[in-house]
Every structure is written in structure tokens, then in C-alpha cells.
């Protein structure tokens, strides 16, 4: 397993797309954090929560990094080399989970740091309180959530295999699909991946729908990852590699 993980790490580091996404994500989060810092809010606590919750926005990027890491192999046909070196295909996916979990963790931590620096600087410059005891928890939750999205990306990539299809489907599902379902049936939101991830971040919804406790959200999200990986293992991973 260790050689496979090292090989995946080398490929992840050598990929220009991954490097660009790793650099862009913290900037993106820092920019988003500026918006609620400048907006009027019901209370200082709410304003702070809105600012630091922007660290969660890294999830789109970490998920795409995970999808690209897996689907890129199918897109470029390099999966042939990977499976020739390791005919036990499940191990290739496990190595990718390990590596993109790590990449996701690094990106998420950098993004949380960027959100903290940008948010705190702007809040204090506006004369608002910039820190509270809740802030570390909000940021930790955001880091965990975005890291898990990278793993979900790998699982979805292995299941769907088609790069553009996987990214389009994942973005539709997690940016709009879950919200739409929640609008139809509000009680269901806490059980959806987005609801589980938000519970992890300790985020509370404006609509008032209660989320699971953070540990419950984390477990549920891990369950979604496991479901995607297992589905891939038993459905698409066995398929013929014909070109």
C-alpha cells in the first residue's frame, strides 16, 4: 500500500491543475469572508459566524480536486498503467483516498487560515469584535467538512469515471440539489450530504431546520463516502478497461 500512496502523492504534486486549485481555494474563501464582514448583521455573534463559515466554501474545490485525481486517470487512459502496476484495483482507490484526503486537509487548513486572517482583519478594521471562543470550532468543522468532500470526490470519481460528468453531477447535487430537496421537504435536509457537512461546521440554518450534532453529521458524511466507494468497488471498478 505504501508504494501506491507514494506514487499517488507524486502524481498529485506534479499535476498543474491540482497546484492551481490548491493556490486558488484559500484566496476564494478569503474573498467570500469579506462580504458578510461588510454587511449589516443581527448581532456581532451572527456576523462573526457568517464570516468564518465562509471557510466551508473550500468544499467545492476539494471535491473537484478529489474527482480530478480519480477521473483524470480514466480521462487520460493512465488508469491502464495504474492497474498494470497494481491489478488489485481497490488498492489504487484506497491509495487515492489517502492522498486526496491529505491534499484536501492541506487545502482546507490553508483556506481556514486565509478566512481567519481576512475575516479578523476586516472585522476589526470595521470596529466589530473579531474573535470569540466559537471561532476555532467553526474553523475546525469547516476544515473537517472540506477534507471529507475531497474523499467524497474520489469516491464519486471512481463510481462515475467520466470527469466532466462527475464534476457536473457533483456540483449540481451539492450546490443546488440538496438545497432544492430541502426546500421541498425541509425535514430531510439534515440527512443529506450538505446537511451532514454543515452540521460538522456547527452551522445553523436561517430557515430554522435543526441539523444533526457535529459528530452525527461527520459520521453520516463518512457513510456517504463509504457508500460511494463501495458502489464503485462493486459496480464500476470491475469494468473492462478497453482504451
Amino acid at each position, binding site marked *: 500500500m505504501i*508504494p*501506491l500512496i*507514494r*506514487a499517488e502523492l*507524486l*502524481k498529485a504534486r*506534479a*499535476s*498543474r*491543475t491540482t497546484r492551481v486549485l490548491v493556490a486558488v481555494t484559500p484566496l476564494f474563501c478569503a474573498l467570500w469572508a469579506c462580504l458578510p464582514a461588510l454587511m449589516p448583521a443581527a448581532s456581532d455573534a451572527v456576523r462573526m459566524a457568517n464570516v468564518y463559515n465562509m471557510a466551508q466554501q473550500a468544499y467545492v474545490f476539494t471535491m473537484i480536486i478529489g474527482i480530478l485525481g480519480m477521473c*483524470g486517470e480514466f480521462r*487520460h*487512459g*493512465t488508469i*491502464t*498503467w*495504474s*492497474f*498494470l*502496476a*497494481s*491489478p*488489485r484495483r481497490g488498492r489504487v482507490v484506497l491509495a487515492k483516498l489517502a492522498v486526496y484526503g491529505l491534499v484536501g486537509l492541506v487545502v482546507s487548513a490553508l483556506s481556514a487560515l486565509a478566512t481567519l486572517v481576512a475575516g479578523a482583519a476586516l472585522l476589526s478594521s470595521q470596529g466589530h469584535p473579531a474573535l470569540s471562543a466559537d471561532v476555532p470550532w467553526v474553523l475546525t468543522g469547516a476544515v473537517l467538512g472540506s477534507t471529507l468532500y475531497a474523499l467524497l470526490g474520489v469516491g464519486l470519481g471512481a463510481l462515475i469515471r467520466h470527469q466532466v460528468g462527475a464534476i457536473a453531477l457533483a456540483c449540481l447535487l451539492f450546490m443546488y440539489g440538496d438545497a432544492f430537496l430541502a426546500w421541498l421537504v425541509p425535514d430531510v435536509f439534515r440527512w443529506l450530504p450538505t446537511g451532514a457537512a454543515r452540521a460538522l461546521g456547527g452551522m445553523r440554518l436561517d430557515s430554522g431546520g435543526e441539523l444533526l450534532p457535529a459528530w452525527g453529521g461527520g459520521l453520516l458524511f463518512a457513510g456517504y463516502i463509504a457508500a460511494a466507494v463501495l458502489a464503485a468497488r462493486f459496480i464500476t471498478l*470491475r469494468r*473492462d*478497461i*478497453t*482504451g
Partner: protein
Amino acid sequence: MRDDPAITDRRRMTSIRVHRLRKSFGKVLAVDDLSFTVPEGTITAFLGPNGAGKTTTLRMLLGLVRPTSGEAVLGGVPYHELDRPLERVGAVLEATSFHPGLTAATHLEAVRIAAGLPAARVARVLEQVGLEAAAHRRVGGFSLGMRQRLALATALLGEPDTLILDEPANGLDPAGMRWLRGFLRAYAHEGHTVLISTHVLAEVEQIADHVVIIAAGRLCWSGPLAGAGLEDLYLEVAG
């Protein structure tokens, strides 16, 4: 370290055997009850018209395509049961399967690490295929011939005793063809086994000592190449 390479190689020799192999993709029967053996230490030409099932057969040997029935084994076992497969069998499939953003050296390094091979192998195989000068260029800018050489370099990483090559002459210029011919001759001369699919009969005729011809997924002819011209034989049995 090996005490005596010749003896170790003989012990490690990986025979290729295809037995009653079938593969259907939906309603299309790509390979139909195909059986043949590749004698160890020979260069065996694997011939047949387009769509005869050559690529599918080679991919079944390499564990990339799952047979519908029958078996395709290397050294008596399916590819996925080989211990350290890259040290037994090297494979060249499509010329295009590289990440265009990686350099040749990084691509080789990734495969080398995944297979747990010594670090010195990357420089060695680049030298073997004559790609040292292009080692740190991105594969996206490579010509088809250079990709073929890189694919062969990848196949050689594990110092395998068997090579399985699918149309390796595709995209090679005359100098590249001559180089490949010389390379395979030298490789077989060391007692190694080569199974090579190709359409360039004149080229393979100069180096092959055994032929397997298939058409429509079935075996047409299999045996040593002696005397009669390969083109005549091919057109007679598969034409």
C-alpha cells in the same frame, strides 16, 4: 543480487497460455473459443484483420478486460495473481495513455514507485529507448513515435522476462522501426519472450519465429514461421 542471471531468468520465465478464451461485449462476440500458447524465449507475431480480437485478447492477458469464459494466463496464473507483475510482464498498449502535463521522467517515476522498483531504473529505461534528452519535457508535446518509446520504457521498468506489445510500430518512422526491430531481437536473444500484435507484416517477418493468426475472434493458424512468406500465409488463412 542475482548470482547467475541466466539461471534466474530461466526459473522466472513466464509462459503465455490462452485456453478456450471467450469475450462478448453485449451481443458482439469479440473473442470466440480462442486457444494458443506462446513458446518461451520466442518472438511471436499476433496477427489478424482489424476487429479480429487481438487487442481484446491482449487486454484479457493483462487483467484489464475480464474474460466471459476460458482463461488467459501468464506463468500459469492470471495477471492479477502475479506477485510484482511489472517484474514479470511488460506491456505496451495505446500510445496515448499518458497524462499530458507530466514529464516523461515523472510518469516513469510514478509507475516505478507504485511497483516498488529501484530508483535507478528510470534513467536506465530512458537510456534504453533513447529518450534521455526528452526526459524532462511534458508528454503532451511528444510525437507518436516518442510516446511509443515512452510506453516501451514503462514496460521495461521492472526488467520483465516477457513483453506484450499491441501495435508498437504505430507512429514509428523508418529509423524508429529499425530501432524497435533491433531492440526486440536483442531482448529475445537474452531468452525473453515477446508477443507482438502488428499489421506491418514485412517488419515482423524479419524478427518473429512463431505466428498466431486470428480472425473474427477465432484461431486461424498457429505455428513456427519457417520458409513460406508471412504475407502469403496470412492472406491464405485470414484474408
